[in-house]
């Protein structure tokens, strides 16, 4: 799960990570007041779940409370387009108004899981403000990696080492060490999958401050962080994905025209792949899971069909635990209910396959049966092409 910058900073402050002073608001009037409280000069930052906000015009420096008002007025309600939002952009609902900082140096810090060793790794670089992928691409040696033990936590000697490697000395080095320890503690204790401070600011007076903050959380651990779960912003997610999550369906919208419903994540990915291999383009990833019931299948079908780009649907089920007859009756109900007019190809294999096929055959619906994945993909692509004529 992702959270907004202002939420990440709230969490980090609880762990003692210094951030600029500021408040979040959805009103330009209040933005003016916040800037006034901060002494006049302020930075107004759009709050959306995407990077690159500055380039898209979502971050503005205000030299006075009135300028903060104007900046907030321009940003709140705008459709902010960045390289991470896609061309349609994201509507900005809130801005974070923070004290304008005296930036002497910008660095990079990030913590994520190193899967190869099964431990968190602290990454640091002198190139703050740039995307870490870009830094890695240009010069992999510019990124320092310090893996640490998640149970023992990041140790002071490791923090000292990283701070020295960043070129920090004297008082600034002394401030960087507790910053790093606090960040690592926050990462482990809140079950983050990513905690990124980019840029990490060194101020003119040598303070160490999180100028920006990004935190992603392990969805599987949210059950023990109900406060963080509250931070979920449904407006930042695709409406169809939100709808699917209500029924415990794993759905990700893509931009093709062949909808697919599959059981199992690996098979669902492969179904997308085989659609493309056969010359088509998948409209979504959808894993109905191992033990879906008729209700889930019906809703899965409804969600796939509510994407206007979808011109055909491929249902690919290899039933192990999942029974083919349950899939078949869910599909029949959904199609009858919605009045589906586009071609539907069904490939059923596994438990109760004959019963499933019989339900489809006897339904009177124009569902196209297929044998095997290849046959299914070719049939749906042919049917979509024909429908397009």
């Amino acid at each position, binding site marked *: 799960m992702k959270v907004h910058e202002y939420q990440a900073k709230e969490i980090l402050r609880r762990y003692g990570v210094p951030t600029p002073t500021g408040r979040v608001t959805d009103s330009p009037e209040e933005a003016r007041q916040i800037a006034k409280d901060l002494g006049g000069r302020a930075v107004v930052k759009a709050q959306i779940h995407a990077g690159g906000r500055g380039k898209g015009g979502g971050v503005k420096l205000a030299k006075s409370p009135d300028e903060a008002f104007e900046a907030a007025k321009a940003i709140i309600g705008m459709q902010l387009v960045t390289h991470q939002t896609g061309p349609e952009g994201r509507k900005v609902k809130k801005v974070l108004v923070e004290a304008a900082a005296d930036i002497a140096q910008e660095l990079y810090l990030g913590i*994520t899981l190193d899967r190869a060793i*099964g431990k968190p790794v602290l990454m640091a670089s002198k190139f703050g403000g740039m995307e870490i992928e870009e830094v890695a691409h240009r010069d992999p040696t510019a990124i320092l990696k310090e893996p640490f033990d998640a149970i023992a936590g990041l140790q002071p000697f490791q923090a000292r080492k990283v701070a020295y490697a960043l070129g920090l000395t004297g008082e600034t080095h002394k401030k960087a060490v507790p910053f790093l320890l606090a960040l690592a503690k926050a990462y482990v204790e809140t079950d983050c999958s990513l905690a990124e401070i980019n840029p990490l600011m060194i101020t003119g007076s040598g303070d160490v401050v999180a100028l920006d903050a990004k935190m992603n959380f392990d969805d599987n651990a949210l*059950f023990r962080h109900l406060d963080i779960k509250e931070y979920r912003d449904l407006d930042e997610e695709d409406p169809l994905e939100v709808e699917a999550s209500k029924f415990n369906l794993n759905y990700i919208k893509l931009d093709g025209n062949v909808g697919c419903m599959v059981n199992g994540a690996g*098979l669902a*990915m492969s179904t997308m792949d085989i659609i493309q291999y056969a010359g088509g383009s998948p409209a979504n990833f959808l894993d109905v899971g191992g033990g879906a019931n008729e209700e889930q299948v019906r809703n899965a079908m409804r969600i796939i069909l509510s994407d206007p780009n979808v011109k055909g649907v491929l249902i690919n089920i290899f039933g192990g635990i999942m029974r083919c007859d349950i899939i078949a009756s869910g599909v029949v109900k959904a199609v009858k209910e919605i009045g589906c007019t586009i071609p539907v190809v069904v490939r059923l294999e*596994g438990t109760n396959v004959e019963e499933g096929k019989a339900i489809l055959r006897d339904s009177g619906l124009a569902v196209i049966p297929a044998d095997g994945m290849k046959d299914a993909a070719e049939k749906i692509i042919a049917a979509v092409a024909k429908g397009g004529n």
Partner: protein
Amino acid sequence: MASWLSTETKVVVQGLTGREGKFHALAGRDYGTQVVAGVTPGKGGSNVEGILVFNTVHEAVAETGANASLLFVPPPAAADGIMEAADAGVALIIAITEGIPVNDMIRVKAFLADRPNVRLVGPNCPGVIRPSAKVKLGIMPARIHRPGKVGIVSRSGTLTYEAVGQTTALGLGQSTCIGIGGDPVNGTNFIDCLQMFKDDPETEAIIMIGEIGGSAEEEAAAWIQANLKKPVASFIAGRTAPPGRRMGHAGAIISGGKGTATEKVAALRAAGVLVADSPALIGETLLKAIKG
């Protein structure tokens, strides 16, 4: 060393009294597996269709001689369940549970580091099956399997069934099939399985099914090139997956431009592995690999 399963395998099912635990314990027993005990704290003394339930894994092991565990414990308590089984001396732990927090698995791995004789498979996996011994520790449909010569290892459940179905249709059958699971931190990796297949006299050819995310396939490719003479065919799922999105499995994510299918396919091909372009061609690709 041969397959991790044999006719000597005696299974304790952790979470036997739950819906899934019961269903798959009985399906395993029907297949021929010795399901000797169940564990559900607080339900010790009861029984599920003749399978005795104990409060602790230690008791179950002491009373029945169980040497393998099949775990269906819900995510918040699953890591605890794995550690309990390891502490009780269970040598093979198959964790089916999906949705265990990454930090819990990191803790499990540290706990297991002191117990080198314990093998954990999973979590978030379909389990392990050996058709020739009629032993099934998992949730895979038994009837699609046939005793035979192909070892299959995969990060995905239903995609494994696809490969099983194809090798059965081609008359090759399977020696041992292992689902290592779709989580980013797991107990058994591809190389562990490839090593076992290398030493297993029953296994004459290997199918390895990977997916996007991480670098386990690349590491396996290097190992295959250096160590393995048996023919290997592979398939990598997720060529069309968009970056930055978790494709169902917690581990199936392309992040920072890393973990793409293209990189994995290239690494495997460079190691001499035949990689199927389509999931429908896994069996045929293996036939080509066998013929050399």
